[in-house]
């Protein structure tokens, strides 16, 4: 064990980095068996597969010498999924019978969204533990409405210009209401810092839009030339056009995807670095945005080129990078942290209704 007297971590004034101890070769076995069993059980095993996957990743995320643990059970997740599945089937049937009903269900889902988000965050927090102490989430449904619904609305209506404000609301809600046992987290990401990491991706989007515009103009020019060119056959014209459309979609997909990755990494750095546990222990995230985007993109390329077989390697690679750039500085003594929720019993079994699907990628 790295920490001999783990109950009382030393008073350290420097950041301790986390580390990811998982290996691609080891995860490959877990992954391929997950996929295989999911297929041959017609998807039923996917709930248990999720548990094994999460236990592997949580259990290999080590900070201050100890790993996290994921506690959700396959049965819990399975029941949750069945409920969600039946609900959506029901909606689909009704929507197929009466298309206008879609408006009603959309409004209903939107109205229920804050509640779903709040329950999802709580579920994910409560099934996570560190040093035998569970996390908890105490955010309200109203808070989720402001953080998620209002935030995305403002961000969308302002064409992303107010996105940093929305990010601030969101992560103040997510981390400000997170508890490690009886200890609260607190975060105060500064708007200025968030705009600092917003600038580059915003510039990327603008430049991308300009390029798309130029390509589009060139395309329409080319089309006019082709249309006026009697030598070209119908098929060739259509082919050119369809290729052009696919190209445009591809460029938009890549530019926005890239900008989103860069923004996400920047926000993570800002939010983590302005978060404190128990009002004194500081968190830190110092990922390089370019490196993070590079890893994420090459991961996708490698995964696709190998028909998914390199996915375990890609997942471990990303987890290793993100974990290695996360750290905590302990001031003084953490002392004994006590779970504020019972780890077993009614409190946990009542969580069936929770939406395990909603998480924020942290």
């Amino acid at each position, binding site marked *: 064990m790295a920490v001999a007297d783990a*109950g009382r971590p030393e008073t350290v004034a420097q950041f301790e980095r986390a580390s990811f101890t998982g290996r691609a070769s080891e995860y490959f076995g877990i992954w391929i068996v*997950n996929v*295989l069993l999911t297929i041959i059980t017609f998807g039923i095993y996917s709930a248990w597969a999720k548990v094994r996957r999460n236990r592997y990743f949580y*259990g290999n995320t080590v900070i201050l010498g100890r790993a996290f643990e994921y506690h959700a059970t396959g049965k819990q997740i399975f029941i949750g999924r069945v409920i969600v599945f039946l609900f959506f089937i029901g909606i689909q049937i009704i929507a*197929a019978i009466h298309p206008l009903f879609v408006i009603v269900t959309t409004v209903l889902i939107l109205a229920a969204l804050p509640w779903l988000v709040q329950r999802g965050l709580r579920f994910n927090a409560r099934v996570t533990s560190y040093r*035998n*102490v569970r996390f908890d989430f105490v955010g309200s449904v109203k808070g989720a409405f402001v953080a998620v619904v209002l935030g995305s609305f403002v961000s969308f209506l302002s064409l992303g210009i107010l996105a940093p404000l929305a990010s601030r609301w969101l992560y103040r809600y997510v981390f400000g209401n997170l508890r490690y046992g009886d200890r609260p987290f607190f975060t105060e990401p500064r708007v200025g810092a968030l705009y600092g990491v917003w600038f580059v991706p915003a510039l990327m989007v603008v430049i991308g839009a300009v390029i798309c515009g130029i390509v589009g103009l060139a395309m329409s020019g080319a089309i006019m030339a082709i249309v006026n060119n009697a030598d070209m056959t119908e*098929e060739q014209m*259509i082919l050119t056009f369809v290729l052009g459309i696919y190209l445009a979609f591809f460029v938009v997909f890549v530019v926005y995807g890239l900008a989103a990755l860069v923004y996400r990494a920047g926000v993570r750095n800002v939010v983590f670095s302005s978060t404190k546990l128990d009002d004194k222990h500081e968190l830190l995230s110092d990922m390089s945005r370019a490196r993070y985007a590079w890893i994420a993109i090459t*991961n996708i390329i490698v995964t696709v080129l190998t028909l998914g077989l390199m996915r375990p390697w890609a997942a471990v690679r990303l987890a290793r990078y993100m974990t290695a750039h996360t750290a905590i500085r302990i001031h003084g003594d953490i002392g004994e942290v006590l779970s504020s929720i019972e780890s077993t019993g009614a409190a946990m079994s009542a969580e069936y209704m929770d939406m395990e699907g909603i998480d924020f990628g942290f």
Partner: protein
Amino acid sequence: MVSEGSVIARGEWHPANSSRSVAATLQLAGGLVVAVGDAAGERHAAAEPEKMTFSPRVGSIPRRIVFPDGSLFETRDNDAIDAYVEKRQGRRSGFVHRMEEFHPRLIVFAGLVMLLAAGIYRYALPALVELAVLLTPPVVPDWMGSGTLATLDRTTLSPSKLPEADRRRIGDGFETLAAKAEGGAGAYTLNFRDGGYIGPNAFALPDGSLILTDQLVELAKGDTDMILGVLGHEIGHVERKHSLRQLYRAAGIAGLIMLIAGDVGSGVEDILTQGGGLLALSYSRAAESEADMRSVELMRAAGRDPAAIARFFERLEEIYGDHGGNSMLSTHPDTPERRRAILDYDAKLRGVTVEKNGPDTSTPGAEGGRQPAKP
């Protein structure tokens, strides 16, 4: 004393719900599993093994052994715990974990996954769609049809402004056509509507309701066979239950992607979803040509011009051909083949063969007899 017990594994012990821990060993003493502190050799917790939980092994992550009092013993010595559990149960534990271990067997698994994935997409998904179509009570398409028509009427369509004579003429022709179709004339109803911004179009709803827009009738300029050819195409869609099939297929693909989403990552999931959309397009093209062939058959059976639907495409070209780029937006790359296929099929039914590269009559027209993408 406890110190004499046989040691199972070394690790750390936590009181219930507490982060405080002490270095300890897990020992076996007198039929009990005991957590013994390293420092003073004190007994922190003890229980009968049946009342304890040993977390299943995943890779080499720390193992949790929970005592009935809620206290926890955590160790990284997975092998030692496995050995103990195996000895106590008299059989090997962790079946899933043993399958997951790095071993040449995993290559077989990978091959199996590839094979199964291809098989599911190629055979299981279509079979499930067929099954779902068979199991769908006939009342569902009826509801879908009337609901969709009501919605369309409320949002886009308005009552037809066609002269009564035109309507009677087309309606009579439609009767003879529908009489030859599966289910007979009673299974199909023709509705005349003003298409509004939909323009010249005809589409079929799953319950056998066909909608024909005034604009399409105007476009035909009195060529009744042309209109009937398009309606024959729509009857083909209803007979083959294309909209229901498409619905189930899309749902099936979305479901498959959702199931493996966590195992492929969100980036790849997005790509799969887009790819699924492209595949759905190719599937709908197959459905279109199937309906084209049915139009030829029905028109032939009703004693009408079987190739009339091909003429419809020609007419579209006459009207929209000059606009070049504009109408190309709505066309499919395979429209020329589609027309050729109609003429070929008609010739085949007549027992005549035509040379493959007949006159180039390709048509960049707005696609005519298409049903709404999401009924």
